[in-house]
């Protein structure tokens, strides 16, 4: 049954609990104001962390270091596999090592502007502030960032900024930062402060008297379902753009942890804000399992163009430069190829839709390095981007040193996620959400090289302090026994879902349903949306979901490794989330950042915000599957940044 969106109910307003005071010293002052847990008392607290990416591993390591008893769960065989490992380009920090005018305030300003004025000022300022410490910490851990010949750190520039503030380790920055955090975690595991459960998936959280008190998890090898209680639960489980089926996310990325927390009362904020990354390799065929991102850093030296003539069948090298349309350079002279991701993506879509797409399926644009190779030499390009070029060649069979790369936008990072306050706590006390899993710092569009920054900021420098403020008054409070009725009930619910999925015995595989859902979401709630397309999605998703629950085929049993069963649980959550994404997109009658409503655009095709009506975070409360959710608004106040139409011209 489709949700009736004509008359959505609005609940109470949300308070982000931003402390009062001067923006520049807000976080420092607040650290003093927060309650502390005496070092000897920290070991009396149990904290559960779900996920071991940048946010989860750094948070668990730091809390272990502080003295808390930390239990970490990852569904991977090792924490080192988390998808943060795949981030290529870099991490921002306002160090101003290049003396090009960077500052904490400028990073703050660029991030708020890049996010199209949809993020909380205080959070973003804090992020920019601790970015300095992140680099110090990572270097001290031995992260081998790129260096200048003098031995000091090198930087490069990224989309949405006019300064060079991005630190990088070849095209493997995420890998190196994750390994740093993982190693810090390994140190605490060895010290006995952190207990790690690998190959274990969170299936639900347990709430007693309105507080998060534990989790129910499943051992992926034995199928055993166990309960764990704690004084606080931290979700660090990443984003959900795999709802689109084809995305740049790893195959196992999912929404289960945050979605099940949502069903237990946590509000889901801005679900429709999905970043579509401009530089992925275009899909080739139906069997395609995922899309591969080519780092945004390539836009530093690569020039993006399409032929000026539609259906130009010539090889790219045969097209003379005056017959090429370098559309970003012409349309946005100030930022050129380094416009933010939403702008670059929409412009690529516009060219392809207009019939100027390149490649065998006419579904891409060129990213051309010929000029850079001529200017800097092949060696310089190899040093900067060699592994990315190699990866492109492996996948497409084409040599990007000789022919331009073909790129097209793909679902990438989700700015939406569980709503959290300034302390990174959700509206359910005791449930903290960090990294991509929360909604907080990127607004409606994330600037490149900021995801790694947020994951580590939350994990190393924010949560370990704010969680103390929550725990301090709970000193002496016993853990809720895992025999408590609430744990029994949640375990029963979880068991029921697994038994149901194994017993449907239908005709179609989980992947088939996932692909179909992905098509609906991409076509109707993708790079651009309209009232009409969203209504269409809202009628098709519930129908397909019902079919899934009556016709899915999951073979095997629950007592050994069973990837189909794991996927079935995740895809069933994607169905419910996809519906909420469309409800949110339909309710936001404006365009902003990654949310582009066709009805709301300027004369030259840019996103047009409606600051009067929509200057708020839309946080949705679940009323059960198939029922209209309740909207809670957190009004966004801008005291430091003036809201203007974004321009990169």
């Amino acid at each position, binding site marked *: 049954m489709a949700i009736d969106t004509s008359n959505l109910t609005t609940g109470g307003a949300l308070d982000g609990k931003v402390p009062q005071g001067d923006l520049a010293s807000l976080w420092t002052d607040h650290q003093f104001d927060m309650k502390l847990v005496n070092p000897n008392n920290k070991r009396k607290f149990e904290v559960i962390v779900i996920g071991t990416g940048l946010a989860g591993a*750094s948070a668990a390591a730091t809390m272990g270091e502080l003295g808390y008893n930390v239990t970490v769960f990852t569904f*991977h*065989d*090792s924490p080192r*596999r988390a998808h943060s*490992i*795949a981030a290529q380009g870099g991490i921002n920090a306002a160090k101003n*090592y290049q003396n090009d005018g960077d500052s904490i305030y400028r990073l703050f300003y660029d991030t708020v502007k890049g996010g199209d004025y949809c993020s909380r000022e205080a959070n973003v300022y804090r992020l920019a502030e601790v970015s300095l*410490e992140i680099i*110090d*910490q*990572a*270097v*001290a*851990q*031995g992260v*081998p*960032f790129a*260096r*200048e010949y*003098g*031995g*000091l*750190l090198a930087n490069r520039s990224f989309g949405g900024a006019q300064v060079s503030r991005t630190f990088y380790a*070849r095209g*493997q920055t995420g*890998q*190196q930062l994750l*390994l740093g955090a993982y*190693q*810090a975690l*390994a*140190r605490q*595991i*060895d010290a006995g402060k952190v207990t790690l459960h*690998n190959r274990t998936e969170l299936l639900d959280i347990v709430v007693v008297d309105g507080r998060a008190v534990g989790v129910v998890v499943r051992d992926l090898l034995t199928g055993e379902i166990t309960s764990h209680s704690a004084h606080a639960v931290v979700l660090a489980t990443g984003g959900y753009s795999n709802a689109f089926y084809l995305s740049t996310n*790893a*195959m*196992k990325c999912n929404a289960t942890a945050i979605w099940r927390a949502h069903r237990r009362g946590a509000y889901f904020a801005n679900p429709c804000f999905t970043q579509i990354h401009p530089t992925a390799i275009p899909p080739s*065929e139906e*069997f*395609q*399992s*995922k899309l*591969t991102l080519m780092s945004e850093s390539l836009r530093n030296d690569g020039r993006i163009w399409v032929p000026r003539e539609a259906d130009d069948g010539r090889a790219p090298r045969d097209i003379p430069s005056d017959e090429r349309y370098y559309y970003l350079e012409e349309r946005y002279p100030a930022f050129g190829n380094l416009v933010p991701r939403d702008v670059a993506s929409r412009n690529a879509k516009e060219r392809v839709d207009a019939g100027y797409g390149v490649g065998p399926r006419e579904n891409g644009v060129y990213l051309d390095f010929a000029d850079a190779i001529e200017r800097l030499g092949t060696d310089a390009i190899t040093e900067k981007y060699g592994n990315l070029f190699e*990866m492109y060649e*492996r996948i497409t*069979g084409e040599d990007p040193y000789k022919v331009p790369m073909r790129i097209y936008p793909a679902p990438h990072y989700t700015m939406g996620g569980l709503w959290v306050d300034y302390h990174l706590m959700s509206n359910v006390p005791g449930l903290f959400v960090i990294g991509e899993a929360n909604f907080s710092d990127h607004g409606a569009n994330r600037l490149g090289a900021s995801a790694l920054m947020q994951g580590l900021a939350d994990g190393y*420098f924010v949560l370990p302090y704010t969680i103390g403020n929550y725990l301090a008054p709970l000193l002496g409070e016993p853990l809720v026994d895992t025999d408590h009725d609430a744990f029994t009930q949640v375990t029963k619910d979880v068991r029921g879902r697994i038994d149901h999925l194994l017993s449907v015995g239908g*005709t179609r*595989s989980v*992947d*088939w349903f996932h692909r179909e859902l992905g098509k609906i979401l991409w076509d109707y709630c993708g790079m651009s949306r309209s009232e009409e397309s969203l209504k269409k999605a809202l009628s098709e998703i519930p129908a397909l979901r019902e079919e899934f629950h009556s016709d899915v*085929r999951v*073979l095997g049993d629950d007592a*050994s*490794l*069973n*990837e*189909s069963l794991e996927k079935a649980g995740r895809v069933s959550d994607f169905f419910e989330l996809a519906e909420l994404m469309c409800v949110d997109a339909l309710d936001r009658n404006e365009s902003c950042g990654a949310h582009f409503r066709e009805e709301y655009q300027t004369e030259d095709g840019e996103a047009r915000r409606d600051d009067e009506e929509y200057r708020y975070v839309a946080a949705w409360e679940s009323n059960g599957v198939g029922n209209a959710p309740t909207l809670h608004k957190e009004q966004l106040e801008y005291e430091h940044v003036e809201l203007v139409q974004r321009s990169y011209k």
Partner: protein
Amino acid sequence: MKLTLHVWRQPGPGDKGRFETYEIDDVSEDMSFLEMLDVLNERLISEGTEPIQFEHDCREGICGSCGMMINGQAHGPQRGTAACQLHMRHYSDGDEITIEPWRSAGFPVIKDLVVDRSAFDRIIEAGGYVSVPTGSAPDANLIPVAKETAERAMDAATCIGCGACVAACPNGAAQLFTAAKVSHLNMLPQGAPERLERVADMVDTMEQFFGSCTNMAECEAACPKGISIDFIAMMNRDYLRAKFQSRR
């Protein structure tokens, strides 16, 4: 193209495994090797056969999850490539392909092509880190690192922990993995104070799980990141020094 696959099927760690043969005839050259297995699995599901379990995640050659012996070679025939980045354009119509899990005592089989690589985590826990508490680090530019040193450390640090080195080694040794991890940190000034203790602890832990290195260099040939066995020499040198020093 049409292929004949001989795939190792093993229901669980305690079960006896066997090869099953599958014919597959709709393989496109643009598919990755894992996508080819996806297509086969879709067909198996529709026939009511449990799909082949294999480990995979990022499919971008970086997470290190995937890994299988393809015609006796770790990650297949293309050098410097993880199985997820191997594409079917390297095969021809009518080819027969044998697919097995990593074979090593250090990596027990869990199911089908999935093995347990957690011994690698034990090696890291033994000392594969710099002991630096959060928040106490000096400014990042305070300790210069020569570009060349940073580059060499990065060469070692690119290890994805896939275990191909172990699988390719006739002795089931994990020297290349351990050496990459040891050398990355030992080369940098940040890792220098713990240099000897690190190498001793990590090598001793490694030896609890894996076989001995006899310098066959198969690991280097199989490594999808092209990590050099020079790092093994570096590790051995540090290890000897650590052992001599502890005798004094």
